């Protein structure tokens, strides 16, 4: 009994520690860049009001996932790992955490999307020229495609060919929606190289909440100067309309979402992007579905975290588990996409309402079997040391 209390306390401490550190990190990353956009101290509170809700959900759900996983291999002692009661603790505790959040707060996609942050200072820097990151065109005409096919080298051709697919009805080429940031960067470089883009530099003298003054936009052969421009915000993106100057609107992404040095931090960038899919797995229209999803994830995580354990060499299991964690974070979105595809294209429409239950059984049966076998052979396994 004392052991269980100890475990519970350990788990709670871990969860609280993770939650607050994640909250601090996410909050800082999201709000501090606004200082270079011209924010002053008195405005911090105002801006933090719109950031605090998504940051809360992000840190909460990530803390749940991470704490369950870390608990499984870091806190529980080897000889107790096979006990069902030990594994029930985090499941029970997370159930207690998640239930009120699901029932009373009812988070939906808007809450985790940072969509309410309509503040230009989070999108631009003040007082310096900075590179505008061109939007990769979702559709290109066949002429442009042919031009690229004739002038680009083989490596570049491959990138274009695999990411732009022909639309047979309009004869245009459409961008692959699932292309990741790194691929988009590569496509951008190719477009720059063959001068399909302008190399645009932006200067903003002073930026307010939604009004930018003293704007200079430098295009390849032209310069646009505006005394003041109003920014529009649509889905985490800021738009500057330059139609009256004869140029298309410019799109800006939030500074915290963009990793400054993308090439070298591509792995981290991927993790940040895929984090969104982990969080969105907890969201669904029905509470029962949320709870099913939560139960499934916790069970899988705790199975996965106790998968690799060598009492002889805890450091090895630690390293392998960290790698597993990176793996899970990096590829969850793919599993998610696969499931989506599976339910949209393979299964009949009738069972669509039960897809959570079906998913639940797809994963829970092998995991349960695995755990059952291990528990049965447990006494032997403990003595042998893997």
């Amino acid at each position, binding site marked *: 009994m004392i052991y269980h209390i100890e475990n519970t306390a350990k788990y709670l401490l871990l969860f609280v520690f993770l939650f607050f550190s994640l909250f601090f990190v996410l909050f800082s990353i999201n709000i*501090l860049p606004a200082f270079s956009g011209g924010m002053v101290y008195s405005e911090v509170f105002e801006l933090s009001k719109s950031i605090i809700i998504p940051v809360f959900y992000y840190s909460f759900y990530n803390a749940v996932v991470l704490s369950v996983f870390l608990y499984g291999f870091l806190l529980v002692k080897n000889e107790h790992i096979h006990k069902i009661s030990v594994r029930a603790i985090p499941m029970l505790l997370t159930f207690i955490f998640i239930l009120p959040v699901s029932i009373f707060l009812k988070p939906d996609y808007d809450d985790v999307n940072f969509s309410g942050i309509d503040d230009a200072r989070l999108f631009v820097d003040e007082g*310096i020229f900075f590179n505008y990151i061109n939007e990769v065109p979702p559709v290109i005409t066949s002429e442009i495609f042919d031009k690229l096919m004739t002038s680009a080298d083989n490596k570049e051709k491959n990138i274009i060919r695999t990411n732009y697919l022909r639309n047979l009805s309009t004869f245009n080429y459409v961008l692959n929606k699932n292309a990741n940031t790194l691929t988009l960067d590569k496509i951008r470089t190719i477009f720059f190289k063959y001068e399909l883009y302008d190399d645009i*530099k932006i200067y903003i003298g002073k930026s307010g909440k939604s009004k930018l003054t003293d704007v200079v936009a430098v295009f390849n*052969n032209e310069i646009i100067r505006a005394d003041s421009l109003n920014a529009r915000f649509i889905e985490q993106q800021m738009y500057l309309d330059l139609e009256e100057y004869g140029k298309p609107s410019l799109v800006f992404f939030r500074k915290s979402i963009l990793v400054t040095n993308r090439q070298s931090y591509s792995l981290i960038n991927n993790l940040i992007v895929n984090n969104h899919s982990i969080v969105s797995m907890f969201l669904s229209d029905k509470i029962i579905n949320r709870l099913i999803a939560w139960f499934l994830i916790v069970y899988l995580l705790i199975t996965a975290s106790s998968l690799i354990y060598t009492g*002889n*060499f805890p450091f090895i299991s630690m390293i392998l588990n960290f790698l597993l964690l990176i793996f899970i974070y990096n590829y969850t979105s793919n599993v998610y996409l696969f499931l989506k595809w599976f339910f949209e294209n393979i299964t009949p429409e009738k069972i669509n309402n039960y897809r959570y239950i079906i998913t639940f059984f797809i994963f829970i049966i092998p995991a349960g079997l695995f755990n059952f076998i291990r528990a049965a052979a447990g006494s032997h396994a403990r003595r042998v040391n893997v």
Partner: protein
Amino acid sequence: MSESVSILRRNTYKLFFKSSFLYALIIFFNVLFTFRSDIINPDFMSVYLVNQFICDFVNKFFINIWTFIFLNYALFFKNDLTYTTGGRRLIFSKIISSGLNIVIVSSVLFFIFSEFLTPHLRSNVVNIKEQSSLASILLLTADEYYNEGNYIDALSTYEKYQIIIKPNRVIREKMRTLRHMIYSKQPDGAENKINVPDNLNTYIDIADYFYREEDYFSAWFYYQYVGDSNPVDRRKALNRIENIKQILTFRNSLMTDSMRIEFIDNNTRKIRALYNSISEADGYFSRGDYFNSYHAYRNINMKYPNIREVSQGMNESFNYIRAGYVNLDDVRESFYFPSHSNFVIFYKSNLILKASKVVKTIDTGSMRERYFFYDLYLYELESGEVTQIIYSKYGEFKNSGISLISFSPDDKNEVFYPVFKKVKKERLSVLFPDLNIYDFYTDSGSFYDIKSISEGDLKRAGKLFSEVKLADYIDNGAIEFNFDMGLLYNVRYDREGDSAFSIFDLLKLRDGFRNIGTQTGISLKFVSILIAERIARVFMLLVFSLLLLSVSFRYRVTDYKTKYLFIIPAVVFLFYFTEQVILYFNSIFITAFSNIFDIAGLSAFVIIISFIIMSVSIVYVSATEVE
């Protein structure tokens, strides 16, 4: 000192040197296999390998240290080493003391090397790359000259190439043939070129020299000059002129008397004309119109290459225009060098300078850096709109300005002057009250926009504009530009950290930025972020090493098995990932805090935070138990 401590120490140092050796080997082969002979000339291979190897070795050295810590304290650690010979347990600090030594010394060395040695080596690598591209350009040009049959230029270009890279057998053979061809061609090719020795200073001596060398026309020219200006040698000069006339007529003895008189008159007239054109060129020169004086001298020099004043005047004028104008030959050569596109800066608070391309080249003579601007625009802003655009096809950064006029040394008409691309109507009518310049422009409201920018039009319009002052900031076809060009060339517009800068360089950069001022649209924060990042980086990597020392020992292997060796690649990958995470959060936090502090404040803040984190980690390490 107990026995097990000395065994521990021996094992630790042994393992450290083994793992470092292995690490060095991996880095070396990586550098060797990524060597690209199309970018770097194989002649520089050994220098490149050494420089790049040391850079890479230092760069990822902490991964080596972490791997070593893992191997020593987690994987290969033998439990009996925690006991002394007397059977007592050692304390943790004694067990890790040698490992700690290595970590601390390595971090200090890492800091010193990465701040003082690596930047130097990296600039060496950049130099090697630049010289390689210069060499390949020279070789291409020389081959082109050779194929065109321009043997003299081909030889001189091959000789320039020889300065940079030791030529191979084929090129040496080519140069030998070229020299032979040039010297054997000399009798018929050099019928009129005589080199006057430098020690001849007086005109009479020079005239005598030409007389002896049988270049009678040049001798006549100099004797005439002496006869006109020097009363002492006047008699001798006039006598010699008579002699020359006789010799010339003797050479053409078949002429009749009238033809002879006409021949002499003709020659006299030529001498007079020569005098006139030289004095005309001298006039240009003394008025400071070096461009016209150069071309005047050059025209004379093509006809009479032996007149020393002319070639001297030509060279002097050329030096003057080269100092003030852009040489199109240099621009053509610069085309192959690496460049940055779209260079933008606030030249003044209401004036933006933009170039579509900035090229950095090296001068073959002095090995100094030169900067060329392509398509240079000067936008003048006034209350929310662009009121005036001045365009120059090429520009070059010289001492403390950018020259906007580009000339060709071979063709007088090949000159580009800066022109108005857009100008207010009243301004143009003030500048050109009677001249019809409006052919080049279209009317758009209260402005004139340039119609077409074909090269011919540009040259013609430029000629007209060369007479007037386009703006206050343009003086003699150049704008004042007191910025450090080497600094501006390296500036990134997206504030990415650049590891090529050391702290020392960054401090210099900061001063440079201060001189530039805050109104340029270039971030001073960039420097403070990088300085703080460099300080914090060492601390954070050190903190992780300390934590790893403790964690490795706490979770060490109790029963070693060979199959555990297979885990090492995964460990290295995890360490690599950890380093990335540390650097990422390091940079993102410092970038965020840079908006709150100034440069010194940020560094101080970073140091304080680092010390707090470090003391926490030290407490964690010291709390490690030896079970």
